[in-house]
């Protein structure tokens, strides 16, 4: 029979680093870490040597020198005497604009298409399948260029709106002009703007109209207050319903709270709708949605929407059939079953992949290069680099911008994701 002996004395041998499973993982990690560090060192060293060989230095001073070029779409004030940094900011805002618009429309499209693809109506579900497969399986760049080409080649020129017998005319009661240079839609102006009305009057003798940030702040502030008040009203209704079983009718109160304060503010500011009109070479006044923005926005929305549709469909299918059967047993209509029972649960499955779709859309917006949309890649990463010869600095800044933006988007959505997850105890 065996006798108990002391375990052998742990004497550490070097070979244990590889052959002993207790140490092996540490060895591998250390080696990998050293290799990664060496890789970085090599990259940096290579960069420094190459910069030296080219006689270039590394500094960001170019950002404060005058840019010298013009940008067509500006969300903030900019002219060609302002700095490269300012031009980069204009580009950043343009990127954010198209990413924001794209995310909203892609989500709407995706949710609708995803739900409809599960429809029992054969025609509807097949149509959605065609949409999803069509857009998902053709490169985004082609869609961008296709939409841009359609806009440029088949829409009328501004010139055709002119003369006694124009060959093209504005639509929606002379308020919207669809041209091959983009779409002009009416803009909202304020006759007694609190930001001041220094801007030039568009028509001789007409009152100057400004659209100031302060005005919008006031309007949206009022709107937010109204919404908060409405929430209070609803909570009160909830309490009454819980206590008495009868929900008081408050919809007219809610509508009044929503509409009246904003209406008063709008009237006080003297809100006016300014329709675009043809003057000189182009339409002026109104808001100009350029071809490049439209092509990029529509293509990004349709393309990402197709992916989101699949995510939504997957999320809905992940919910057990018993849930909808239970809802039907309670007498809920299919629409309310979807919005009250299925979608809230499906959100838990949908949100994580949705985040990566938003990130994709944001990064794909740099395909703007194909249609000359002046995003941050075109200003900072294009013209500025070209005029100043600061490829390395420009590309680093550009890369860090996209990285930062992606981290912010995924951070915000992860926060939302946590709030929709099951609270397990």
């Amino acid at each position, binding site marked *: 029979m065996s006798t108990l002996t002391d375990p052998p004395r742990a004497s550490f041998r070097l070979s244990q680093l590889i052959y002993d499973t207790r140490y092996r993982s540490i060895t591998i990690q250390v080696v990998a870490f050293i290799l990664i560090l060496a890789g970085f060192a090599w990259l940096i060293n290579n960069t420094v040597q190459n910069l030296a060989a*080219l006689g270039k230095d590394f500094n960001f001073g170019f950002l404060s020198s005058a840019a010298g*070029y*013009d940008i067509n779409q500006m969300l903030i004030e900019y002219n060609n005497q302002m700095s490269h940094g300012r031009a980069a900011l204009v580009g950043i805002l343009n990127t954010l604009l198209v990413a924001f618009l794209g995310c909203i429309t892609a989500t709407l499209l995706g949710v609708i298409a995803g739900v409809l693809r599960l429809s029992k109506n054969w025609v509807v579900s097949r149509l959605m399948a065609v949409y999803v497969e069509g857009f998902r399986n053709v490169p985004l760049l082609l869609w961008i260029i296709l939409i841009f080409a359609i806009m*440029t*080649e088949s829409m009328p020129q501004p010139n055709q709106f002119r003369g006694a017998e124009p060959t093209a005319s504005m639509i929606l009661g002379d308020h919207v002009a669809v041209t091959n240079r983009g779409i002009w839609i009416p803009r909202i102006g304020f006759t007694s703007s609190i930001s001041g009305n220094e801007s030039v009057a568009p028509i001789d003798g007409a009152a100057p109209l400004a659209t100031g940030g302060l005005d919008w702040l006031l309007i949206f502030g009022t709107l937010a207050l109204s919404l908060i008040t409405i929430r209070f009203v609803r909570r009160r209704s909830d309490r009454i319903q819980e206590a008495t079983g009868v929900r008081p009718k408050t919809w007219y109160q809610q509508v009044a709270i929503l509409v009246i304060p904003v209406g008063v503010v709008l009237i006080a500011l003297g809100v006016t709708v300014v329709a675009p009109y043809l*003057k000189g070479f182009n339409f002026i006044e109104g808001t100009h949605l350029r071809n490049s923005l439209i092509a990029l926005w529509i293509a990004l929305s349709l393309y990402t929407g197709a992916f989101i549709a699949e995510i939504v469909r997957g999320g809905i299918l992940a919910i057990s059939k018993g849930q909808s059967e239970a809802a039907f047993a309670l007498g809920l209509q299919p629409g309310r079953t979807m919005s009250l029972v299925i979608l809230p649960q499906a959100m838990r499955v949908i949100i994580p992949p949705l985040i990566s779709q938003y990130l994709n859309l944001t990064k794909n917006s740099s395909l703007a290069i194909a249609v*000359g949309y002046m995003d941050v890649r075109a200003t900072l990463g294009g013209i500025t680099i*070209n005029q100043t010869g600061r490829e390395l600095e420009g590309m680093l800044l550009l890369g860090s911008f996209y990285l930062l933006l992606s981290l912010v988007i995924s951070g915000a959505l992860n926060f939302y994701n946590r709030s929709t997850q099951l609270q397990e105890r």
Partner: protein
Amino acid sequence: MAVSESEMETQEEVKMNKTVFFGGLAIAGLAAGVASAATLDDVKARGSLNCGVTTGLVGFAAPDANGVWAGFDVDMCRAVAAAIFGDPTAVEFVPTTGQTRFTALASGEIDLLARNTTWTFSRDTDLKFDFVGVNYYDGQGFMVPKALGVTSAKDLDGATICIQTGTTTELNLADFFRTNNISYEPVPIETNAEAQQQYLAGACDVFTTDASGLAATRATFEVPGDHVLLPEIISKEPLGPLVRHGDNEWGDIAMWTLNALVAAEELGVTSTNVAELGAAATDNPEVNRLLGTEGELGAMIGLSADWAKNAIAAGGNYGELFERNIGENTPIGLARGLNAMWTEGGLVYSPPFR
């Protein structure tokens, strides 16, 4: 037993593979690839010249129906290749856009950039390039459809203008409109083909670039007569080939090849008589020095004695290149103007070959 033997073998194999794996990782190379300063050696070792040209501008650089590049800038590349290798076809043409050209040159992807590039102070100094001369004296112009009835660039207030991004024209345009206190809407485009498509579709009212480029573009239109060039020339655009700063030997080769083509026109050396003139010393000492029948100019720049002879034989002298590609008898129809020889009232001039 056979089974245990094979087991042992497998184990040994695993052990050996591990060793190889770790060893391989440990000796991961740390060699840094630094841009070489000796471009001529690199070009000779490669056996061909990498020359950056436009993505397509008829007359200056565009592939023909057979895919063979032709044009004024292309011939400059061919002349340099001929000077080095004696073979004008030893060129790899790299199409570049206004935005990619400088990065391509700075990174060493191309050895020479001959792409209607304007010689400016900041490009020569801050961007670390060296312009080797001017092969076309140009200025920025505007092209508009005749139907618009515009007669002056100052009438263009509010116009939509197609402009190639990353060019000097973009900056000149901004300056011109600012100083004249009028406004415009820029439509940024990448290539000349894109500009042409947008302009013809009426997505922009005006196309602006170097006047030579406008003429070349207009020549490819179905009805060139429907479009006019406005009288204003708003800038000086001395276009020339350029190389990276810091390799003066290489810069000298490009510079003196260009000068050789100019001197050849001045001295009456053409592609037809160059073989005859270069065969034996003539009674003109400068022709002799240029063609290598006297003196050792070739050796001074590290090339063979007949380098200039080869360069001229490749496509002809400066005047021949001009007339064949963009001259008055071509569809582009540019007059010599500023680009005539200095002896004929132009600006084209070569330092002496001595």
